[in-house]
């Protein structure tokens, strides 16, 4: 009897907590397809707000994806060789460099943005292009790429693999391509998904760095909350969900792929 009462209490508590978290999300998405939010669902369901969002903000959505992919490109080109170098060299200097790369995580995005503006704000054509935002995103996401690749390097004794490829005559570049990158693939994949999702959702930095012509998805979202009907902002959230959920699913699939040893075979 007592055990059942405890179970019931636990279940109720769990459901309440779950509802506390889920209800706002559902409510927000519902608001995006409700004809008039203040009159509630009774006013009817509509896709007109979603259409309006698309008309008003399609460019921000596209731009966000361009910036996210460009950020990914830069973090791959910079981050993977950096992790390789840091791992091979080792020692105290490498740890210090690793800490410096990680530092932007501890500094508020606004401060980083301010520093970028103070330093490069004068280069007006750079300042006005989306590349300016991308630089901010690279500073913010690079540690995630470097750390996730470093973790794989530490787990696979990549140093001996590198030495063994070298003993067979492979130049550093060849070793990197043939042995290091293929064996770091799980880490590179995990880091890539992290970088893309973080870049897509980044607001702090981007809000400071953007111009009216270089809004990204989250900045557009803030803009719509501030200046549009609540239904449009909600519809925007809905669009954001639709964009981000496939990414999270992709992440899950890749995580499964990583655990499957056949996945490492070319």
């Amino acid at each position, binding site marked *: 009897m007592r055990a059942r009462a405890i179970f019931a209490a636990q279940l109720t508590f769990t459901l309440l907590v779950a509802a506390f978290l889920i209800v706002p999300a559902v409510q927000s998405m519902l608001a995006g397809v409700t004809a008039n939010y203040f009159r509630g669902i009774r006013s009817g369901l509509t896709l007109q707000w979603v259409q309006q969002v698309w008309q008003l903000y399609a460019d921000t959505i596209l731009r966000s994806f361009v910036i996210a992919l460009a950020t990914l490109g830069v973090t791959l080109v910079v981050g993977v060789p950096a992790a390789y170098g840091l791992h091979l060299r080792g*020692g105290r200097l490498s740890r210090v460099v690793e800490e410096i790369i990680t530092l932007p995580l501890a500094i508020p995005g606004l401060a980083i943005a301010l520093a970028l503006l103070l330093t490069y704000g004068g280069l007006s054509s750079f300042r006005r292009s989306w590349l300016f935002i991308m630089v901010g995103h690279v500073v913010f996401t690079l540690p995630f790429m470097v750390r996730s690749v470093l973790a794989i390097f530490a787990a*696979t*004794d990549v140093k*001996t*693999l590198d*030495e*063994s*490829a*070298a*003993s*067979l*005559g*492979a*130049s550093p570049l*060849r070793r990197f391509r*043939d*042995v290091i990158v*293929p*064996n770091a*693939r799980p880490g590179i994949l995990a880091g890539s998904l992290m970088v893309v999702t973080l870049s897509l959702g980044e607001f702090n930095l981007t809000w400071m760095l953007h111009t009216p012509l270089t809004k990204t998805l989250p900045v557009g979202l803030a803009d719509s909350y501030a200046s549009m009907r609540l239904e449009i902002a909600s519809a925007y959230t809905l669009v954001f969900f639709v964009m981000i959920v496939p990414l999270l699913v992709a992440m899950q699939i890749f995580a499964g792929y990583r655990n499957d*040893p056949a996945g*490492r*075979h*070319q």
Partner: protein
Amino acid sequence: MSGHGVALRVIDCGKTFADGTRALAPVALEVGRGETAVLLGPSGCGKTTLLRIIAGLETPDPGGRVLFGDTDVTGVPIERRNVGMVFQSYALFPNMNVADNIGYGLKIRGVGEAERKTRVAALVALTGIEGLERRRVDQLSGGQRQRVALARAVVVQPSVLLLDEPLTALDAALRERLRGELNRLLRKLGITTIYVTHDQAEAMALGDRIVVMRKGEIAQIGTPRAVYFAPANKFVAEFVGAANLIEAACNGATLVLPGGTLPVANGAIHGQAIAMIRPEAIAIVPAESASLVGLVDSVSFLGDRQRVLISAAAAKVMTADVPNAIALAVGDRVGLAVEPAAIRLLPGDAT
């Protein structure tokens, strides 16, 4: 495919690491073409550092030089030294199958696919791993990995083959079997080989010459027989095989011991000496006719022989390996006989 090796010379190569630890005092070593030299010593003796200097994975301290044949390779990175190397962990590439692992060095050298296939197949046959070519490396047993690593290292016909404890990761029975295989293979290939191990049985079985190392220095270089029968000092005597090291007074012709005397043939001196006697050089004889007598402390039957500990003969308990048929009991008074030539007097200072 024999005779691709070159003579190897190491001149004054020392290694001091950035933190000031000296891993290797400047050492000199010459290895002939096609010869197998084994670097033997306990962990931390500098044998792996010396191997890595020869490989090109470490640079020697200034003044040190490494020569392959007549070519000074001291400043040449490992990828241009044309070495073959087998690592203790084998370091097979997990992203390639067995055949691709073995063929990687050939691919780097720009060998065409047809020739590559033939040469990989030859090594697969030579190392006895037929049928595994398409396997992933994580599907191989330890012994198979060792063979793949060896095939991968020798398929490129290296000038020098370098093996870093290639059998240590295997269990004892497999180790013994692969040691025999490796020995045949090295003789057949005739490549100049440097083999690092801490296992003296491996060193004696595989080496044309053994380089015994200790605390970053070379303690002795010699053939397995020379190192075993004529160790240069106490360390070598004890590290290579079992040894009785007896401190005793020598009167020019015999050792004077608490339990009697032993005649000495070579290098007898007047004064205190350390005599080395291998356990198998001691024979049990009737006490009445012996110049040296002792008491049986314990008898361990080992199958092919028995190990007897004898007290009262020398200041320390002596170990003797005697034929398994002799009946002995604890407390027996026995005579000990040693061929004078089997007693070696060592310099007393080296500990």
